[in-house]
């Protein structure tokens, strides 16, 4: 069985890729994708710590991950909705162009 550190390394890699995407991309949708990657890295960590933790039979980590995935789905829906509205309004999805509170 792969040791815990392997999972953590994958999760850290995944988080770093997501963070780099979120910071470097101009497109709002790509930033959202980056954020999803970071979220899933966190989920992977949750599962790994559960599985290698003192009570693997209690299914707590799984419940955490399922909740987190549900919240992420809702967040993605809201985020995409906002992006679509912004695109309709400003005809762009460039984040740098969206630095004003006023329409």
């Amino acid at each position: 069985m792969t040791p815990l550190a392997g999972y953590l390394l994958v999760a850290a890699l995944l988080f770093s890729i997501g963070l780099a995407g979120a910071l470097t991309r101009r497109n709002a949708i790509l930033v959202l994708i980056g954020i999803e990657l970071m979220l899933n890295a966190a989920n992977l960590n949750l599962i790994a710590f559960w599985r290698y933790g003192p009570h693997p039979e209690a299914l707590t980590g799984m419940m955490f991950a399922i909740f987190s995935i549900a919240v992420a789905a809702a967040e993605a829906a809201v985020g995409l909705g906002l992006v679509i509205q912004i695109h309709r309004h400003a005809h762009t999805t460039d984040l740098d162009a969206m630095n004003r509170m006023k329409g």
Partner: protein
Amino acid sequence: MQETISFTPQLTAGAITKILWLIPAVPIVASGLIALMKQPRRKTAAALSIGSLGFSLLLALAAFGHVVAGWTHAQAVRETVNFTWLQFGATNVDLGWVLDPLSAVMLVMVTFVGLIIFIYSTGYMAHDENFTRFFCFLSLFAGAMLGVVIANSLLLLFMCWELVGLTSYLLIGFWYQKPAAAAAAKKAFLTTRVGDVFFLLGIVWLFAQTGTLLFYNNGTGSMEAGALTTLLAQPAALGLTAASAIGLLIFAGAAGKSGQFPLHVWLPDAMEGPTPVSALIHAATMVAAGVYLVARVYPLMHAGALAGGTTTALTVVTWVGAFTAVFAALIAVAQNDIKRILAYSTVSQLGYMMAGLGMGGVAVGMFHLITHAFFKALLFLGAGSVIHGCHDEQDIRKMGGLRADMPLTFVTYAAGMLALCGFPLVFSGFWSKDGILEAAQHWSVAKTPFYMLVFGALLTAFYMTRQVGYVFFGHWRGHKPAHESPAVMTIPLAILAFFAIVLGFIGTPAWPWFHAFLEGRAAGFHTLLEPELMTVMAVSSVVVLLGLWLGLRLYGGPAPKPEDPDVLQAAAPLPWAWLRDRLYVDEFYNVTAIAFYAWWARVADWLDRRVWGGVVSGVAWTFRQWAHLNRFIDMRWVDGSFDKSCEEFNVGGGLLARVQNGRVQTYLRILAFAVVALAAILFWSSRP
């Protein structure tokens, strides 16, 4: 000489005394009602005035009856109602009213003569457009005068006194469109004010010494023995006692109101008012207020007199009165205005009253006051009737022969004139003047006042005969023919003429009812056949007859044309000119008092503009400079530092705002750095 008067100690005031305040209050309320009415309601205004005064007359008669009923052979009634008006600290200022023979007699006189004059006024003023205003003032005047009469407190008396002064001002200046009337009103107001200042000083001094201004208050009033003893013990300046000094100050007020020399100048000018006003105010009642005041404070003036003697205050009153009597009579000889002659005669007769008070006591002076009120009101109303009949002509040289045109006026006027002259035995003026002469003859200080008053009597007879000669004898010298006045004016004349004759009989030496009544003695019959009494009566009669004869001799024939000089003027032009110009008292005041005031006003004006104005602008300048300094400090230091700190905040805010630039990825970047930093801190800090 005044004997000690005993009055019944007051246990409870009678019912009539309790409602005595209604006598002045009703006319004053009537006056207020008239003031609220619209102008054209003439009948209502006249009815209110006359009705209210008639009501007062009835009350006054009831009060008079009460006093007469309570008068026994040794005691007179004196009832007071007092109440506290002001209270500060332990000091009370009390007001109240008094019913005694003195006030009862005055109440009846004022209401009766007033009522007759009110009725006469409805005829005299019938065509005046300000008829209602006139009756409003008349009622207020009557109420104020009645207030003076019933007052038992010097303060209440002073209030009503000033109210009388005010209404007198309003009535003299009733025809204020005439500049002369407006000036006369102002003059009357200011001249009497001169006396009133002294009066007020006297009041304050009296209050300071005795702590009360009530006249009578069951032994603690200021006119009663206790207070008088205190006042006598208190020396004032110049060897006067406080009692005499206060008495003299009060007399100064009385002199102003009663037109005594040297404050007489306003009274002749006051003839600018409507004639009923002259009759009511300047003959019958208001000028009598001064004499009444002296009679009221007589105990104060008389305090400290030795047996049969006199006091400084009374001596001054006597000399001023006697001098005024002769002085005004002299001027009256050379006047040509019918009302002005009467005005000077009033001044002269007021001098007689004062002299009578000073030498003979309350009863002698008051008797002349009462008889004079009737016959002088008669004369003034008669003069009004003449002026009315002669189409507002007042110059006696332009009249003449009115005996035939105005028979009723002539008969009544003659009665008044003979009463004023003191025609022997039948007319009231004879008896009242005789009382004064008799007192003068007995006066212990000097005989001069006696001779002065006798000479005054001669002059009085002379100038009245001259006036009657000009007006009623000879032939008509005017333009339009004269006509008799309506009955509403002649009937009051007849009533007054009746009293001008019969009133003397209540005070003859044979039956001195009036004197006994005022002094609380029994009225008995005396014989007239005492040599001293006979001498005085004989002297007085001879002098009056001489005056009448002289007058008739010079003016009884067909009088000259208006342009011709007077007989006396032809004989002695220079003294005549002096007298005609009223002995230059007005001119003297013009170059002294008035010039002084004008100069003083200029000095005050200069001081105001230059000195005080300079000080004020100096202060203003200082404050302006101070304000400039403040502004400088504000702008440079206070505002500067505030602005500076604001600027710092502004710069700081700008720096922070640069972070908050709205770029989502910048926030995210900061967040990422922060997470890394946090992880690093946790990592390094967890290592042992």
